[in-house]
């Protein structure tokens, strides 16, 4: 699947997105479409702007130029309740899970239900326990504090929080970073199950190629602020793109030059 046949109106449509921090240009004229129900993974090295792309869509970073549309609605420049309304469609699993330390696990999972949707605490707690069950955690975890959880459990709780409001779109920021390979596989399978179960559109960023192959329908390679290749995950080994070849095989030699000081 490519951008043209991702659907008549993509769920997420990004055009000409540019972001600079001072003199450092992070994104340069980035274009990307994500179709309805599609799972797209953006791959690329550290510091190429993967996280910034997600933050622009969420309204956490204001781009210098460009357009981002969700369901055809322009989101660049939205503030306050208008931005909250758009963000209510989106769930996000952060790289570090970003659980609120001062809240118990169930309160973390139910946060969007209580604060965003105004649900009462008791039904919100029941739904949080149900969502924890979906990510393989028992009700006994609900009353723990985030500091009492292992890295893998934190990711699962973060995933439960991301899906708690049954969002139409889910973002995954480096979902397997810092996890052992087995837990990485568990998290990837949970992501696929949750996304398919909700029928959600997923946009993930990672530099873990094993994870990318598991969760992606389509892969987009980001380099120097632009998408330089995109295609179905099955075709990534025959991309014919030197940058993609170097990245997926993890070679130091190639067109991507890492800045290494000796």
């Amino acid at each position, binding site marked *: 699947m490519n951008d043209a046949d991702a659907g008549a109106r993509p769920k997420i449509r990004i055009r000409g997105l540019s972001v600079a921090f001072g003199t450092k240009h992070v994104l340069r004229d980035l274009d990307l479409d994500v179709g309805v129900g599609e799972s797209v993974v953006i791959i690329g090295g550290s510091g190429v702007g993967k996280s910034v792309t997600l933050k622009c869509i969420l309204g956490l970073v204001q781009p210098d130029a460009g357009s981002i549309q969700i369901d055809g609605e322009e989101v660049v420049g939205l503030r306050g309740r208008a931005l909250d309304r758009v963000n209510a469609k989106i769930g996000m699993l952060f790289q570090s899970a970003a659980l609120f330390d001062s809240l118990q696990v169930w309160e973390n999972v139910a*946060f969007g239900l209580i604060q*965003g949707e105004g649900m009462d605490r008791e039904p919100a707690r029941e739904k949080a326990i149900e969502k924890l069950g979906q990510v393989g955690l028992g009700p006994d975890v609900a009353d723990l504090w985030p500091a009492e959880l292992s890295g893998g459990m934190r990711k699962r709780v973060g995933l439960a929080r991301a899906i708690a409001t049954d969002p139409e779109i889910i973002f995954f920021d480096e979902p397997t970073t810092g996890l052992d390979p087995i837990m990485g596989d568990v998290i990837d399978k949970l992501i696929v199950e949750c996304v398919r179960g909700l029928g959600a559109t997923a946009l993930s960023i990672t530099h873990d190629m094993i994870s990318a192959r598991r969760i992606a329908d389509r892969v987009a390679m980001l380099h120097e602020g632009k998408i330089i290749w995109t295609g179905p995950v099955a075709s990534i080994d025959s991309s014919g793109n030197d940058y993609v070849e170097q990245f997926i095989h993890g070679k130091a030699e190639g067109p991507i030059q890492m800045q290494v000081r000796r």
Partner: protein
Amino acid sequence: MPILQPIGRVFLNFLAATGRLSLFTVRATSHCVRPPFYPRLVMRQMVEIGYYSLPVVGLTTIFTGMVLALQTNSSFSSVNAESATATIVVFAVTRELAPVLAGLMVAGRIGAAMAAEIGTMRVTEQIDALSTLSTNPFKYLIAPRLIAGLMMLPILVVVGDIIGVFGGYLIAVYQLDFNAANYLAQTWRYVETLGVVSGIVKAACFGFIVSLMGCYHGYHSSGGAQGVGAATTNSVVSASILILGANYLITALFFGVG
């Protein structure tokens, strides 16, 4: 000239920081008076700032009152004016010492904790997570702390006034052999509304400053543990300086004219 460049840079940085702080203050204050409100969070912060600061404020003011009684008696005895001890203690404690010392102690205890907590939330993406969950960080994190600081420090200062005066009484009666009834009568005679009210106004202002500095530096922290540490230090230093500056302005407003 090269020598003017660093001066100009410092001046421009100062203006930029002042502008950022002013915008932050206006934005934070506006969220204090616009719904949605989080009474549960305001209550939690009130307990944190008010109840848990009572021991440190109480100890600070009782020792200050005791020292003040000793010093006043020691100094004034040379001019046979020891009888002014009660007056000096009640004036100094209610007008200046209780509000300023309570403000500085709370800046060290609460301002630092706020900066560390919010700074950690910033560098671990918890503040970003709030935004993605349709919750405004200014309403959820900052407004409750500002409201609680504004409301609780005056209460702490009233308690500090009583404990500080009581400290002076203990020393005067049990160490300096003052007559207890006379000392209390003189203290009561010189408890003036203006002095107490000025102390309460100062306390409200200092509470706002402490919370504002803690939230501002925490919210803008970056760079991991080192950044959070710097935010914590900056919050205490800036709050302390602003408290002393604001103390002069409020004192001048209440007592400086006429």
